[in-house]
């Protein structure tokens, strides 16, 4: 058995397996299930005693999406720069760039609860007083942010008072067309009398709770009324579109490949007051997490 540290492909395999079957892997205590961790410069933080050089009072926490890892935030043609690290040079007092790694196959509300607990511990043990908290969520990560805000409000967590900005990047607030399609397809096939069609439906139904949550943008434990956006926090939305021309039909069909523009903007939600909305035609779902134009937009909003 090899004894070298886990390689990049192994981490990515774990992330993909966790996305598809993360809840099942977790129930079996399978080591492929990605464990929740907050990282700084590629190293896991000890939440009770975070050891960081030049810790600043402003924290920017980036939360990846389904089947992704923290590497999704790395901007191309840079030395490991990300949206968080780029803010550091512009925000007065600097910004400490942190990234979350989590099992994306778990129900979103559970990841939200764990993130909320983690942030509560972090702000308590941070080497300097935390004055500002920025959360960036890509895709499912945006829903995890909403889940964490809800869990934190319910638990009366202190970190919510420090939360200044939430940025939802390609987050499927009203669901993803692909997850909706999988849900409909599985339901339709399961009702067929032919066993070979039912089997296909059953295979689609093997998908994780995390993927199921994406069909309607769910981040609560039980169905019910969604809480509104936190009133004392600025909320921003970033959307991508596959084609460069906004009116291209492919944008209406597929949005950024996985999420429609309307869903990313939460158009079915009532009472949303967004501090900023930006759409980037020609930038697909994955590239939204590491695109220079998005980085510039974030600088404009958050600095």
């Amino acid at each position, binding site marked *: *058995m090899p004894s*070298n540290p*886990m390689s990049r492909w192994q*981490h990515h395999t774990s992330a993909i397996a966790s996305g598809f079957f993360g809840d099942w892997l977790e129930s079996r205590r399978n*080591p*492929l*299930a990605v464990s929740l961790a907050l990282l700084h*410069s590629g190293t*896991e933080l000890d939440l009770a005693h975070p050891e960081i050089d030049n810790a600043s009072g402003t924290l920017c926490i980036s939360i990846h999406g389904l089947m992704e890892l923290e590497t999704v935030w790395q901007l191309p043609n840079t030395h490991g720069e990300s949206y968080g690290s780029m803010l550091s040079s512009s925000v007065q007092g600097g910004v400490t760039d942190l990234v979350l790694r989590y099992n994306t196959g778990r129900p979103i509300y559970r990841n939200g609860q764990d993130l909320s607990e983690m942030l509560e511990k972090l702000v308590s043990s941070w080497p300097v007083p935390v004055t500002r908290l920025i959360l960036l969520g890509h895709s499912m990560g945006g829903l995890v942010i909403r889940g964490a805000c809800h869990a934190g409000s319910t638990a009366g967590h202190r970190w919510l008072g420090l939360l200044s900005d939430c940025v939802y990047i390609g987050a499927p607030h009203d669901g993803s067309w692909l997850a909706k399609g999988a849900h409909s397809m599985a339901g339709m096939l399961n009702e067929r009398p032919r066993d070979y069609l039912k089997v296909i439906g*059953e295979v689609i139904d093997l998908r994780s709770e995390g993927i199921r949550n994406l069909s309607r943008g769910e981040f609560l434990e039980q169905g019910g009324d969604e809480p509104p956006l936190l009133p004392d926090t600025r909320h921003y939305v970033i959307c991508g579109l596959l084609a460069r021309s906004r009116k291209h039909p492919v944008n209406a069909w597929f949005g950024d490949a996985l999420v429609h523009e309307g869903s990313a903007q939460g158009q079915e939600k009532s009472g949303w007051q967004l501090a900023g909305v930006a759409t980037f035609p020609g930038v697909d779902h994955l590239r939204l997490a590491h695109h220079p134009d998005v980085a510039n937009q974030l600088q404009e909003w958050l600095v």
Partner: protein
Amino acid sequence: MSAQNNQHGWWLGMADMLTQGVGHGVMKIERVHLAIADETFGILERVPVTQPWSRVVRVSHHGISRLCYRSVSLAATGAGLAMGSDPKTFRPAKCTGV
């Protein structure tokens, strides 16, 4: 947890997922195979020339197929246990940077 333990655990986890996947996947394939075969045998049973033999052939075909698929499923489950990919022995892997 050391890098060696992380690697060991990761490969055990992979073995668990694959053997479970093969074990369950083969049973699904068996159902697809038999359901499609039933369509053909159903037609043969409606044709007077093939009717007398089709039932016998169907029973033997299904019997042999089930034996083969379940042997593979059992072998996969056994291989998983033999490799020690038992959930009771799993420990969460320590997080390291990519």
